[in-house]
């Protein structure tokens, strides 16, 4: 064992085999380990049995409305960006029974069941994904009312985040301050380094629980060249990010322009399919439906993911409040980028670009925002000129 004193918040270096040890350690501690793996030609999150379940040597290529996998030149463990599914489904399941009732002798009784949630470890989620969890924490456990399921699962969660050393073509996390390097919220953070020095990982513990595990790993002190190499990789990921989101006065820009003609322009393209809301790691809207046994005696209330793109979403007696696609797209985008700030004091966007990649017609939230900004600015200049 090394005599090195291991502390929280300090970065160390481990060889790639230590990543496998990390997975094993978590499994020994009865964590169900969830990480990236390949299914149906996409990288999704699912249970990892062994390190070879990772998409080793594979990367993902995205553009607006397109996604495919490609072989890498190296054997990187985490050499991809984001797939269609986020880890949202583990804390906020797409279907969850929230209440069971039963009719007994004409009386309605609430059935109490104590289902236990499992210990979960997210193994290798990206910093933007981690930011999404921190945002959902504000919604589900930091408000006046608490989502019990979310809280319980969150309390039993261990997070290993993997910093991004390459930017995807639809990434814009530098605009949303959610990457390429995770700043907080992780138990353990790793940065993959493949260079002349071999295949190593820079590693850091962010919590006591993370530190405990880190102490079990064969870590060594970082060398000056490793520090430089990591910094350079993270910096190049930032610098290579081509996309950016307008964030200056974004809230005012959108909320003061709810009647802007550009919303109608987007609506001509938008199919109102709701894909963007399903892939978004922060979207939290849900519906509740009742499922009743044939006898009518037993009933389950089931919470399901919902989308503000559906007509039913805004239904009140008589009809939908948002009957047009224009108003539904506007609701989604203004919520994500503007009213979210009023509600939760943060952007609802983490810059992962999933809504762009998985939009069947390739609507790009960053481009649409830019267009509104450009048109608003141009108009303001025009009226300023007229006044002069």
């Amino acid at each position, binding site marked *: 064992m090394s005599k090195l004193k291991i502390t929280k918040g300090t970065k160390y270096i481990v060889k790639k085999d230590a990543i496998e040890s990390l997975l094993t350690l978590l499994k020994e501690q009865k964590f169900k380990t969830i990480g990236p793996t390949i299914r149906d030609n996409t990288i999704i999150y699912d249970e990892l049995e062994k390190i070879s379940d990772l998409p080793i040597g594979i990367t993902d290529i995205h553009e607006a409305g397109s996604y495919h996998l490609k072989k890498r030149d190296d054997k990187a463990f985490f050499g991809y960006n984001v797939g269609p599914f986020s880890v949202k489904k583990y804390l906020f399941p797409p279907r969850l029974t929230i209440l069971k009732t039963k009719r007994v002798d004409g009386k309605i009784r609430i059935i109490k069941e104590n*289902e236990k949630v499992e210990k979960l470890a997210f193994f290798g989620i990206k910093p933007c994904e981690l930011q999404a969890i921190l945002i959902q924490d504000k919604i589900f456990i930091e408000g006046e009312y608490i989502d019990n399921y979310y809280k319980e699962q969150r309390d039993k969660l261990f997070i290993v985040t993997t910093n991004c050393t390459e930017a995807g073509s639809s990434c814009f996390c530098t605009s949303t301050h959610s990457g390429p390097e995770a700043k907080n919220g992780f138990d353990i953070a790793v940065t993959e380094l493949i260079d002349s020095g071999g295949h190593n990982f820079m590693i850091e513990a962010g919590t006591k629980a993370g530190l405990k595990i880190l102490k079990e790993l064969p870590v060594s002190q970082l060398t000056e060249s490793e520090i430089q190499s990591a910094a350079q990789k993270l910096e190049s990921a930032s610098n290579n990010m081509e996309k950016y989101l307008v964030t200056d006065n974004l809230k005012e820009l959108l909320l003061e322009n709810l009647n802007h003609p550009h919303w109608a322009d987007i609506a001509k393209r938008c199919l109102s399919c709701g894909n963007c809301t399903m892939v978004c790691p922060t979207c939290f809207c849900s519906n509740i439906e009742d499922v009743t046994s044939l006898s009518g005696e037993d009933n389950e209330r089931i919470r399901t993911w919902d989308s503000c793109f559906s007509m039913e979403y805004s239904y009140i007696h008589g009809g939908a409040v948002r009957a047009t696609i224009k108003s539904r797209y506007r609701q989604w985008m203004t919520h994500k980028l503007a009213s979210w700030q009023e509600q939760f004091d943060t952007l609802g966007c983490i810059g992962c670009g999933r809504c762009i990649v998985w939009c069947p017609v390739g609507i790009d939230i960053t481009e649409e925002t830019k267009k509104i900004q450009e048109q608003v600015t141009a108009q303001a200049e025009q009226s300023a000129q007229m006044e002069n």
Partner: protein
Amino acid sequence: MHLSNNKPIDTQITSAAFTPEMLVIKRVRKETEDTFTIELVAETGETSFKFKPGQFNMLYVHGCGEVPISISGNPNRTDKLVHTIRMVGAVTRAIRRLKIGDMLGVRGPYGSHWPIEKAEGKDIVVVAGGIGLAPLRPIVYHMLNNRERYKRISILYGTRMPSDIIFLKELESLRGRFDVDLYVTVDRADKTWMGNVGVVTTLIKKTNFDPSNTTAFLCGPEIMMRYTAIALQQQELAPENIYVSLERNMKCGVGLCGHCQYTGKIICKDGPVFNYDSVKDLIKKREI
């Protein structure tokens, strides 16, 4: 008994936030063809429901669904829970079909309330449209329970037709009082109707109030509240002194499901009662 909003968190998956209290229907009274009032009590008989005027409950019919309904009873009467409901969908219809002794799930009370304390020492103008009188009835009770705390009280109520008037008996007894001005109007009537005809906004200029010292409470269809607020402002009442109760689709009632967003506001949590000044720009916009 306290309703479930502050239940301790336990380990069951059924989230405390979504677990109703099962109450028993004690009375059902028909108000109009499509509107009725129900009274609920606890199964044990020991009942203590505290709420503030303007708040709502989520009412749950086993096997059917849940709807947000404002509380329409007297806030002093904590021995029963009163809701006045218009049949507009599957769940409200299912509630109407329940019989005395049947059970209804209740979660709440939720949401903001009419600022009745802030309105003390002032003239009060209550403007209700249609079923919008139900969420306003608790303030009318409160003001009558504490009549000395308020100056002139005017209640303006508009409905579609004379047969749509709810709380008829109570309105008749209000008309007999010298310390409350009640104006009722309908949009259309036949010759047997002896009262006012015309939209509720036409009553504003007939109402006596001191615009520098008045609070107005509005509830009804959004369009009615919009134009009533305009009519009140024409009488020099400042938007800060006007309150409205807004409505959007609600699934959870506790700010978790996202449905009732009104841009930055979440109606079930930040509303349903809002100061008009804070929503006056939005309320003019379409499909928010």
